[in-house]
C-alpha cells in the first residue's frame, strides 16, 4: 500500500502570518493546509493523515496549548511545532513538557522554520513506520494457534525445547514443529528477531 502524502497543517488566527507561511512552504515545495482556528483543525482532524502541525500558541477561542491537550487525549502522534511570541517562553516550556516537537519564536528565520518542519516530517514518518510494523506483528500474532501462542510465550521466556515439552506435556518433536510454525508465521529470521518483535509491541 502506498503511503498517503504528508501535509503541513498551519493553524494560526492571524491571516497574514498563516498565508505567508503557506507561501513560504510552497516556495520550497512543501504542501500546506492552512487553518484559521484550533476548532477548524479538530473538526477536520484525521489521525491517519501523515505530516506535522505548525501551531500558534496564542489564539483567541481555543489556544494552541488547549489544542495540543485535545490531541494528546486522542492519542494523536502528529508532531506539533509551536510558534510563540516574544514573551511566551513559559507557555512554550509547558508545551514542550506536554510533548511538543519544538517551538520557534516570532519573528523567526524562514530557514529555521523549514528545517524544523523537515525534522518534524521525518519524525512523523518514523513514528508511522514503527507503528505500521507493530500493526503487522499484531496481525501475525493473531494467526497463531493457541498451542503456538503457548510455545511463543515460553520461547520469549528463554526456555529450551526440552523444558517446554515437559511444561506443555508434549513430545520434543511436537514442540519443534510448533516452534518452526511460529517462526514462519511471524516472519522471524532468528530467535533474537522473534523476541525483539514481541517485546516491541508489548512496550517493553
Amino acid at each position, binding site marked *: 500500500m502506498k503511503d498517503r502524502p504528508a501535509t503541513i497543517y498551519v493553524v494560526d488566527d492571524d491571516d497574514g502570518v498563516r498565508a505567508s507561511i503557506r507561501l513560504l512552504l510552497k*516556495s520550497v515545495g512543501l504542501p500546506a493546509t492552512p487553518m484559521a482556528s484550533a476548532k477548524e483543525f479538530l473538526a477536520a482532524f484525521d489521525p491517519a493523515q501523515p505530516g506535522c502541525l505548525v501551531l500558534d500558541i496564542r489564539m483567541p477561542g481555543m489556544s494552541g496549548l488547549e489544542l495540543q491537550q485535545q490531541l494528546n487525549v486522542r492519542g494523536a502522534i502528529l508532531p506539533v511545532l509551536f510558534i510563540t511570541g516574544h*514573551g511566551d517562553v513559559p507557555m512554550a516550556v509547558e508545551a514542550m513538557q506536554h510533548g511538543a516537537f519544538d517551538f520557534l519564536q516570532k519573528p523567526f528565520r524562514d530557514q529555521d522554520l523549514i528545517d524544523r518542519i523537515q525534522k518534524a516530517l521525518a519524525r512523523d514518518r518514523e513514528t508511522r513506520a514503527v507503528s505500521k510494523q507493530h500493526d503487522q506483528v499484531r496481525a501475525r500474532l493473531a494467526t497463531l494457534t493457541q498451542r503456538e501462542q503457548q510455545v511463543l510465550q515460553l520461547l520469549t521466556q528463554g526456555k529450551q525445547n526440552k523444558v517446554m515439552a515437559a511444561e506443555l506435556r508434549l513430545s520434543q518433536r511436537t514442540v519443534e514443529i510448533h516452534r518452526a510454525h511460529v517462526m514462519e508465521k511471524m516472519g522471524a529470521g532468528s530467535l533474537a528477531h522473534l523476541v525483539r518483535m514481541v517485546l516491541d509491541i508489548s512496550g517493553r
Partner: protein
Amino acid sequence: MSVQQIQAVMDAAVDAVVLFDLTGRVEAVNRALERMFGWPAQQLCGGNVRQLMPEPERSAHDGCIAKLLRTGGLPILARELPALRRDGSTFPAYLSLGQVTGADPSQFIGFIRDLTDRRRGEENARQLNGRLVQVARLATMGEMVAGIAHEINQPLTAIANYARASERFLESPTPDLADVREAVQAVAAEALRAGEIVRRLRRMVRGSAEARQTTTVQALVEELQSVALADARVNHTRLGFHLAPDMPQLFVDRAQVVQLLLNLIHNALESLAQDPASNREILVRGRRTETGDCELSVCDNGPGVAPEILDRMFEPFRSTKPNGTGLGLPMSQTIAQAHNGSVRHQPGLPRGAYFVLTLPPADNQS
C-alpha cells in the same frame, strides 16, 4: 510642691522636660532630657537653653521669647523643630512650650519629644508606597509593551516570510511570477498593517491629556527618586540629583514623565553595567533654560551610545540590547512631544551619554 516633688514629677515624664526663664537660663531638666541630649543636668542648669538648638533656631531663640512676652504670652505653643545633641548631631523634635503663670521673672516649661523613629517609619512607609505604585505602573507598561510587541511581530513575521518566499520563487529557473506578485502585494499590505499598529500606539501614549496636572519639578523628582535610588543601589551605581532653585512649574502627566526619566536612568544603568562598580555614576540635573523651559538631563559616565545607532536610536525597534523592546527611546520621545517638549542626546565628555528632556513651563500650556 517641694523642689524634690517637682523634680520627681519631671523625671517620671517620658518626654524631655526643661524649665527656663525669660533670659533662657535653665532652671531644671529631667532625666529624659539628659538621655535625649547627652548633657548631664548640672552642666545645663544655669546655662542657656539655646545650646539645645542648632542654628538658625539658636540665634532666633531670644527674639522668639521676647515676642512671646510682648504678645502677652500664650497658654501653649507647639511645633516641630530640629534639636541639637551634645555631640553636635541633630534630630527632629516636637516641642510644646508653656509659660509658668505667676512666676516672676517669667518662666517657661518645655516638653520635647524625639521624632527620629516616627520620621523613619513615615519615610519607610512613603518609600514603600511609592515603590508599590511604581511597580504596579511598570507592570502595566510592561504588559502594554509586550502586547504591542506581539502585535507588531505578526506583520513582521509575515513580511519576512513573504520576502524569503519571493526570493526562493525567483531562484527557480522558471519562476512563477504569479506567486511572486502575490507575495509582494502581501508585503505591502502587511507593512501598512504594521504602520497602523504604530499609529495606534502613538494615540495610546498621547491619549491621556486629562491626566495632566500642574506640578513642581521637585515633586516629580521626589517620585522618581523613590524608585530610581533603589534601582541604582541594586546596580551598584551612584545616582545624584541636582535641581536649580528656580525650576518652573510643569503641566504634565506626572506618571508618564516619571516613566520617561526612569527609562533614561535605566538606559544609563544598563550602559554602565560593564564598567567597574566604583566608577559608575549617573547625575540627574534640572535647570531653567534662558527661554524659561524646564530642562532635565540624565548624564552617565559609561561607554556612551554606539556611533552606528546615533542617528537612529529614537526610531522604534533599534534596540541594541538582547532583551530590548526597541521602544524605550521612541516612547520617551513620543511622551515628550505629546507634552510639547523633546528628548535629545549629546555625547558626554570625556565619555558617557547625556540625554536631555526639555518641557515647557506650566503657564505656556493652555
